[in-house]
């Protein structure tokens, strides 16, 4: 059986670029609908699903994802339920799953135990919004032991010296933070982010996936023109959930329709 890291690598090798990494908060708006959303994402063509494990104090996230975190926590989402959700999704789909969360939830469970449980449930990669390179050692070590890909972030202000260190540890894909700011839809693509993509691509063969602020097919095309291996779309998906709260069918259909528009060549 392939490890999570190998699963992600295989998907990048086999699929047409740019891949779509589609984000949703686990348990938003509640467990059952969240599972339906994940399945619809896979059907609609998401190449990788990024699942947010909600934290009470998400400093890297804008208001749209903060509200989704609250909805999920209010309906009982926690680390154990996240693992249930992934196991249940795994019974019908092989689409790779990457978890996005914050350091304290992993440390509280025990770093090693978190990664072992994650691998056993079928999680392929983990990205931690508040763990920069300097604090990453215990997390990347546990990731390596469990086979889960340690996905590292780089930003336009990352120095060359730190970039080399980060790229040495990264596996699965590199998460390129495309704006100086928190998550949330924006227009256009910043030149500093395109420059960063170029810097990163000359230094590594690990796939690079820009995220933060990406919501339109035009932005996806622009990133593709600049040779991005994937794009990560989050808040724009979550907003479609929020816009249809109270109507699960409408949520699932809105998310599916939106992902299909992003995947259209």
């Amino acid at each position, binding site marked *: 059986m392939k490890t999570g890291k190998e699963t992600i690598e295989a998907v990048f090798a086999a699929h047409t670029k740019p891949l779509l990494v589609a984000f949703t908060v686990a348990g938003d708006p509640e467990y059952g609908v969240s599972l339906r959303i994940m399945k619809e994402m896979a059907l609609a063509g998401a190449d990788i699903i990024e699942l947010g494990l909600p934290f009470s104090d998400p400093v890297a996230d804008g208001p749209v994802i*903060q509200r989704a975190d609250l909805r999920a926590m209010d309906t009982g989402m926690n680390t154990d339920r996240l693992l249930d959700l992934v196991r249940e999704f795994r019974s019908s789909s092989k689409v790779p799953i990457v978890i996005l969360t914050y350091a304290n939830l992993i440390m509280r469970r025990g770093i090693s135990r978190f990664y072992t449980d994650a691998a056993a449930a079928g999680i392929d990669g983990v990205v931690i919004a508040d763990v920069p390179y300097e604090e990453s050692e215990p997390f990347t070590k546990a990731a390596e032991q469990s086979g889960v890909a340690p996905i590292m972030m*780089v930003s336009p202000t990352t*120095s060359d010296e730190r970039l080399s260190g980060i790229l040495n540890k990264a596996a699965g894909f590199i998460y390129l933070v495309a704006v100086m700011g928190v998550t949330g839809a924006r227009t256009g693509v910043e030149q500093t982010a395109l420059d960063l993509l170029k810097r990163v691509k000359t230094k590594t063969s690990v796939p690079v996936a820009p995220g933060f602020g990406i919501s339109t097919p035009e932005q996806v095309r622009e990133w593709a023109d600049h040779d991005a291996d994937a794009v990560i779309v989050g808040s724009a998906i979550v907003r479609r959930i929020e816009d249809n709260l109270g109507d699960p069918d409408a949520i699932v259909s809105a998310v599916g329709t939106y992902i299909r528009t992003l995947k259209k060549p």
Partner: protein
Amino acid sequence: MKLPSRFGEYGGCYVPETLIAALEELEKAYLQILPGNTFQSELIHYLTEFAGRDTPLTYCRNMSADLGCKVYLKREDLLHSGAHKLNNAIGQALLAKFMGKTRLIAETGAGQHGVATAIAGATLGMSVEVYMGEVDVERQALNVARMKMMGAKVIPVQSGTRTLKDAINEAMRDWVASVGDTHYVIGTVVGPHPFPLLVRDLQSVIGTETRRQILEKEGKLPTTIVACIGGGSNAIGMFHPFVNDAVTLIGVEAGGEGLDGKHGATLCGGSPGVLHGNFSYILQDSYGQIQESHSVSAGLDYPGVGPEHSMHKDSGRVMYTAVTDTEALDAFLYLSRTEGIIPALESSHAVAYARRIVPALKTDDILVINLSGRGDKDVSQVIDLMQQNGVAL
């Protein structure tokens, strides 16, 4: 980073990648600008001419007679703005100015740090925006008005619990997007490296002065020093210059309704974890979600604490304890009536614990209480609480 980012196992730098460059820049300023003569003489100018340092170390005759030992108060309540917060705010604002930043942001709970930052911004000619939980904006109208009067913009925070914790989250989100021209003036010894070091150094003026003053007055060091702890900046500022001496150091946390109920006693009732960029004791549930704190005093109502305190707790160098809301209220009235000094509800926690330990002290023993702030801001709240408890003023 050039410096060790930890105090023992605590501290560190748990922030989004986008902030690392700004923290490196700040660390560089901490190492190169802060110790320089130009900066230091400017800082001393503002601390003395503007803020009113040295603050007195007051020998309290009535309290000493009542309690049976020598009681001194370190009078940070007499600092401009009414609390120790200005030591840090003016220092960080000046450092930011030397770094070429033009805009200051800050978080505030009760409003004391927001007011201190507004003061610093006004006098140094820098724009100030203060994040404040919506709940706190409503209950601290006076401080909101003071900030606005000095030209600061107050931004009500509607996310999460709408209190101090979320104001810090929002200030960090702002900073991620504005690091080029903006400095985040964090209000206490928390946050990612190098903030706990920087704020500790700026607040250490409290302990350094106290040490000199007590040697002048008594010819010896105190037996015991007591300070209140929320994030822990007044306490670390007082304790730090004494950690290598044979002086008993006691930090008093917000026991709220008692450690079995709702409280803000992170060191006494919490466990290690990561909040707001550092690894330290925090209040959290079994999954690691941050829990709401509670205290009668807004300045101690925070579910985290500075990492240096966590180190001192584990090593036993500082003793950490807690007093309840009720004990703090009693001490508020006690000091007001005994000495004619109305203490902040935060500082009342230190006074309350001092009263509790005094039977163990001898007549010649010296007890220093850090009176971190004055209580004018708390008067209407205290009157309300007294009426609820059926106590006449």
